[in-house]
């Protein structure tokens, strides 16, 4: 602990926590609306969105990436809905058709364009590189109040914190209509709440979380964060507010334990090197879910 911890571990841990909580919060509502697999679809279509944004703008900049990913998410949702209605196909199959086609398109675009000078390759897109987001200018805990050192923080940290703030703001502003629309859509519509735009807004917020997290943990792990902490929280309580709080706690716990085990675990058992932090975070969220599934007070199915 000490100087190297602040430089090498603190930023990734904080980024990991922000990613996990930012995904877990909207994930609660996706789970309750039985739209958990929209999170799966969003994570798969973030890649083509970012690739198209990169091809159109020529640079890897946050703003264009966010727009590209949000656009891809909206396009995917519209396409899924269109296929469901026009073809009278069930939702899961419609999702499968759309996101696999978009993901394949994204991979093709990625492979045939010149992205060798930016860190946009498929493996990176899939499992990110959390361990590399280090703060070289830090010299210890004192750097936290040193302006010059803070200016050299890895850019993903303020970006992720901002995304988390936006998500918290959205949930704070729309808590009541969103909860109503989630639990009783017809009643919410009768109350005059615009449920369709609200649902679309939730999807867009999830896409924002997914793309902000993309750089740090890649796209596939994001699904774990969308689903596992909220699912574990679901089995701890029947109250929405408590569930959201539990999910944030579980998400942060998964992030911290995952990162620590990935970075320090091999050292503890005498091996060298480290393992994928993103993968370990997903695994830990799964472990938490497993524990909740066998021991959570509200785990029992209703039938």
């Amino acid at each position, binding site marked *: 602990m000490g100087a190297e911890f602040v430089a090498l571990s603190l930023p990734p841990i904080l980024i990991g926590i922000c990613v996990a909580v930012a995904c877990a919060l909207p994930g609660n509502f996706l789970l309750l609306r039985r739209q958990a697999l929209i999170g799966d679809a969003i994570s798969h279509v973030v890649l083509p969105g970012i690739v198209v944004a990169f091809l159109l703008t020529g640079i890897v900049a946050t703003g264009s990436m966010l727009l590209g990913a949000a656009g891809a998410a909206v396009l995917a949702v519209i396409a899924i809905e269109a296929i469901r209605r026009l073809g009278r196909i069930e939702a899961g199959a419609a999702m499968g058709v759309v996101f696999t*086609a978009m993901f394949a398109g994204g991979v093709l675009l990625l492979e045939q364009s010149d992205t060798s000078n930016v860190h946009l390759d498929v*493996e990176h897109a899939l499992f990110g590189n959390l361990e590399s987001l280090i703060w070289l200018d830090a010299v210890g805990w004192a750097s936290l109040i040193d302006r010059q050192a803070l200016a050299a923080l890895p850019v993903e940290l303020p970006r992720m914190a901002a995304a988390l703030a936006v998500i918290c703001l959205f949930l704070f502003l729309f808590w009541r209509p969103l909860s109503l629309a989630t639990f009783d859509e017809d009643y919410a519509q009768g109350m005059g709440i615009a449920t369709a735009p609200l649902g679309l807004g939730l999807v867009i917020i999830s896409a924002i979380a997914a793309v902000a997290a993309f750089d740090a943990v890649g796209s*596939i792990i994001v699904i774990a964060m969308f689903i596992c902490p909220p699912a574990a929280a679901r089995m701890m309580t029947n109250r929405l507010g408590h569930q959201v709080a539990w999910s944030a706690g579980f998400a942060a716990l998964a992030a911290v334990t995952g990162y620590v085990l990935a970075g320090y675990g091999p050292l503890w058992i005498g091996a060298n090197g480290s393992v994928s932090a993103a993968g370990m975070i997903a695994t830990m969220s799964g472990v938490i879910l497993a524990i909740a599934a066998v021991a959570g007070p509200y785990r029992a199915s209703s039938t």
Partner: protein
Amino acid sequence: MLADALLLQLGYNATLVTLGACLLGIAAGVAGTFLFLRKRALVSDAISHATLPGVGIAFIVMVALGGEGRSLFGLLLGAGISAAVGLLCVHWLTIRTRLGEDAAIGAVLSVFFGLGVVILTIIQTMNAGQQAGLEGFLLGSTAGMLRSDAVLLAVAAAAVLALVLILRRPLELAAFDPGYAEAAGWSLGRIDLAMMGIVLVVTVVGLKVVGLILIVALLIVPAVTARFWTDRSDRVVVIAGVVGGVSGYAGAATSAVAPALPTGPIIVLVGFAFFALSLLFSPGRGVMASVLTHWRYQRRVHMRQGLLALAQGQPIYEALTRRLMHRAGLIRPDGVATSDGQAAASKALLDETRWSIVRADQSFAAAATRYDGLTPIEDYLTQDQLTEIDHRIAAPQVVT
């Protein structure tokens, strides 16, 4: 070039990949149909992502036992075992906890994949030279395909098709009417298990050609495509197999023409193209067919209402009606009826009057239910019934 590729003239590896992809497409199309018909299409996503830890562990075990870690059969066996474990977890989570199947699928998918990624990075810290093939399982790696791989694909595809042939009655029954299947004594749980097992074999076999992320496409898209062409569950299976095989063949051939591009995505996009064409142009369930049916219906309604308006001396304001009637030679551009139009109009009015008499009369209750404002009454009543009704139509009265 493309013609050469389609005729398998581009060399040994290209031919192997093309034939292998074709076989995979057939097997996946057939297996995925039952999954789709049972409305559990995305379970295949969980199965495919759950193969990754098994591949990694199999590699570690084979290397620990002194081998090279490259035996495709060993890797696929590991993949199959971990996919089976993943499937059991989905099943357990769905049945034993309050989570829905979608949450269970997503949880298993992501956690097993994350674990697989961890194992891959563990392997990377081991002797790095040997693991170079494992990441190919994510998106497929057909570049170094061996004849033994193609033979494995062929055997697996044949096994899948044989199993489906043997089990086709219970599978189709469970897909088409699960309630009846249960009542008839079949165990839905066992049939679902068999179905998932077949999907698992296809998934594991497809890891090499299209990789685990895109095998879902091969399982779902041909089945959805086939659904547009028929309403019979046995035909959907066959068409899905054909579509899957053609997508695999054409996609692999196309990617042989552009060797730098990965095969898997091209196969998926070819399949999606077939899907899009079917969505738009299939007769019956396609979009064009619905649009045409709508236009035809609209035309009938407008013509009918226009003729009734003519017969009752009312002016026709609707532009579409006037256009349709003019094209049919029933009306002049200024809105005055032609002689054909007058005949058709009085016929329509007679028909409408007869219908209103029928609908007001209890003894014609059965025929009255068939009234839709468009069908002529001669389709439902006999001539002597019509004569009887005509007697009841008031004769023109003299105005005094």
